[in-house]
């Protein structure tokens, strides 16, 4: 398994762990709200907006830490030097996998409006966005691994 493939697998699994942990914490806090687990829409919107704003920097920092640890461990285990640059093939694969992820996320964004229109709470909308975001990333990473293995 090449460095890029291992990195893709790690990115996907770390995303799953980070999102799972985040959702566990968020739902515990949601149940602990003074107005109960089913508050009014304004309170829910404020809650999810704050939770999302916290999630972004926390997930970025967590990923950076995981990538640093991965680089150290990968070098120790394989004894290989890490790639110091991205060449044209890496950039092309990056471009294509990002395009796939973005296309899926746009679809998820539109789909996330459906629960709101059909009378579900905004919690369902945010859950759709977060899980859909993870799904988009997952498909993008699978595509990336496939392109590294089978060709661009």
């Amino acid at each position, binding site marked *: 398994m090449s460095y890029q493939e291992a990195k893709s697998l790690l990115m996907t699994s770390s995303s799953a762990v980070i999102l799972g942990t985040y959702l566990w914490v968020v739902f515990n806090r949601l149940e602990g709200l003074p107005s109960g687990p089913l508050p009014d829409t304004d309170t829910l919107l404020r809650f999810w907006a704050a939770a999302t704003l916290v999630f972004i920097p926390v997930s970025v920092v967590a990923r950076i830490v995981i990538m640093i640890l991965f680089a150290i461990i990968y070098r120790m285990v394989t004894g290989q030097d890490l790639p110091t640059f991205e*060449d044209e093939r890496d950039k092309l694969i990056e471009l294509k996998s990002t395009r796939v992820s973005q296309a899926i996320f746009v679809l998820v964004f539109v789909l996330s409006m459906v629960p709101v229109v059909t009378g579900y709470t905004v919690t369902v909308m945010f859950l759709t966005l977060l899980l859909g975001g993870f799904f988009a990333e997952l498909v993008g990473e699978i595509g990336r691994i496939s392109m*590294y293995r089978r060709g661009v």
Partner: protein
Amino acid sequence: MAESPISNKVREMRFHSGEMTQQELAEKVGVTRQTIVAIEKQRYSPSLELAFRIARAFACGVEDVFQFENDSDMTNGGTK
């Protein structure tokens, strides 16, 4: 993945260049070794710039290293 109509003699050219390693060629042309592997296995068609760099590394022309195999498509496309 559709088979590329572009074939190459990179492996052969490396052999005739004193058994140049993939890593040596990669360093000469400024890409990773994995990209050279992908080119040799015809899983990646390099950009025109990279094709020229590879040809220069072997001191020969681009068409000595890379061949476009689907000549019939070329002819049909050119006459339509």
